[in-house]
């Protein structure tokens, strides 16, 4: 079997097996609430047909895009600065190390208080959850640049701007991409949690609404699967960045 098949066939088999098992158990137990895989598919299809599924997906993805985008714009310059300037690092790092372990869920009441129940709350929560891992990763990246590269740059007497563009930034780029992967993963976790509590759109809302409006567990399960698939796609997209020729050196070996 060639390499590509070996990476596709076994995981697909495992998932197929799980679905078969699920079907079998539900059929045997005659559960009045828990759906069979086929009920999930037909339930989801209803939402596709009336267009609400696309709306919910769009709402969630939009919030992640804005929240993560803002976090990226703040974290990368801040992380580079903290990594390069020691006084900035010693001043700000303890604060960020303290804020980082606070679960984004704990911020939900604060977010509702500050921003109400509109789009701003989840965007704020996504920002909070993804900004710290990206700051930390970027900072560590700068601080662990191999000294021999900085020495070589100093040896050739290049200007500060060349040093930054041609040495510091490319040296840190692989770490930045790792930070982005962590950040986007957390952002996706958080948007669903935030939507379950405060909103009337998005995949998180869809889960809670389906349960509350007549125990539509087929839609609950369908949303969960869609959340998983989109998470996989987001991670795959950031993985594509790791394939770039200019960062590959960091991941080979």
């Amino acid at each position, binding site marked *: 079997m060639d390499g590509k098949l070996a990476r596709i066939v076994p995981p697909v088999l495992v998932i197929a097996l799980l679905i078969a098992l699920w079907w079998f158990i539900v059929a045997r137990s005659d559960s009045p609430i828990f759906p069979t895989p086929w009920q999930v598919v037909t339930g989801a299809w209803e939402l596709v047909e009336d267009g609400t599924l696309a709306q919910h997906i769009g709402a969630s993805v939009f919030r992640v895009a804005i929240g993560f985008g803002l976090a990226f714009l703040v974290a990368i310059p801040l992380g580079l600065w903290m990594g390069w300037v020691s006084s900035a690092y010693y001043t700000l790092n303890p604060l960020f190390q303290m804020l980082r372990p606070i679960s984004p869920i704990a911020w939900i009441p604060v977010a509702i208080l500050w921003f109400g129940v509109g789009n701003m709350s989840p965007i704020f929560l996504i920002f909070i959850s993804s900004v710290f891992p990206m700051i930390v990763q970027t900072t560590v990246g700068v601080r662990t640049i191999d000294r*021999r*590269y900085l020495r*070589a*740059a100093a*040896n050739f*007497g290049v200007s500060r701007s060349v040093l930054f563009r041609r040495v510091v930034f*490319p040296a840190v780029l692989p770490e930045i991409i790792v930070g982005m992967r962590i950040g986007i993963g957390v952002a996706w976790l958080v948007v669903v949690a935030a939507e379950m509590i405060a909103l009337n759109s998005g995949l998180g809302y869809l889960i809670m609404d389906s349960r509350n409006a007549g125990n539509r567990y087929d839609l609950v399960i369908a949303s969960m699967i869609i959340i998983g698939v989109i998470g996989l796609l987001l991670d795959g997209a950031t993985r594509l960045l790791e394939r770039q020729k*200019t960062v590959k*050196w*960091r991941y080979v070996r």
Partner: protein
Amino acid sequence: MSDKQIIVEGITKRFGALPVVEGVGFDVRDGEFVAIVGPSGCGKSTLLNIIAGFERPDRGTVTIDGVRRTGPSRNGIMISQHGSVFPWLTVQENLMFGLRGTSQADNTELADRYIAMVGLAGFETAYPHELSGGMLKRVELARALVVKPEILYMDEPFSALDALMSLRMQNELRRILDEERHTVLLITHDVEEAIFLADRVLVLSPRPTAIQATFHVDLPHPRKLSSPQAQSLREAILKELGL
């Protein structure tokens, strides 16, 4: 100004309470190849780093072309054991990194000429992780040479290579030095490498290091290490090193 390009006077350096270099002084003429050998851990690299301007001595001065050395300069490029070829740039981009010409076309042409000179024509757009250790050393050498430095500082440049590749690189370096005139300061623990390449060999003592002996190698290139003169020189140097 005298013909002495590098003047090292009374260099002393300690790390904390540990004296590493103790009063080292010597001169290097323009175009001369000086090898420095010594037991491992004796402070050879520290001495070279001070001369190249990467570290400050506690006492003593380094004067290059009549000017007191205060920091690194593109006039003298360091090539070290572990190498510092930028892995995120292609071979060609690495060579162009230090170039100052404003014409991109000229820079590219110059880079490609040196890539060919070290035998890497055809690898211009390759990334370092696609190259072997020996090829990386060639890139490093070419990147140093392309900015036309007067001095090359080499800190055990070939010691991470296998024995065969190391010999090949020594030959290569000698060939290049016949084409382009450079002053070279080479740190090595390989006595044969020193005899094969250098005009003069300085033997350093154990830490805190000082110059223990000086040998002149008055043999024409290309040198045969099996010649009686080279062999007796080798034995004399090894004796200084306590072997």
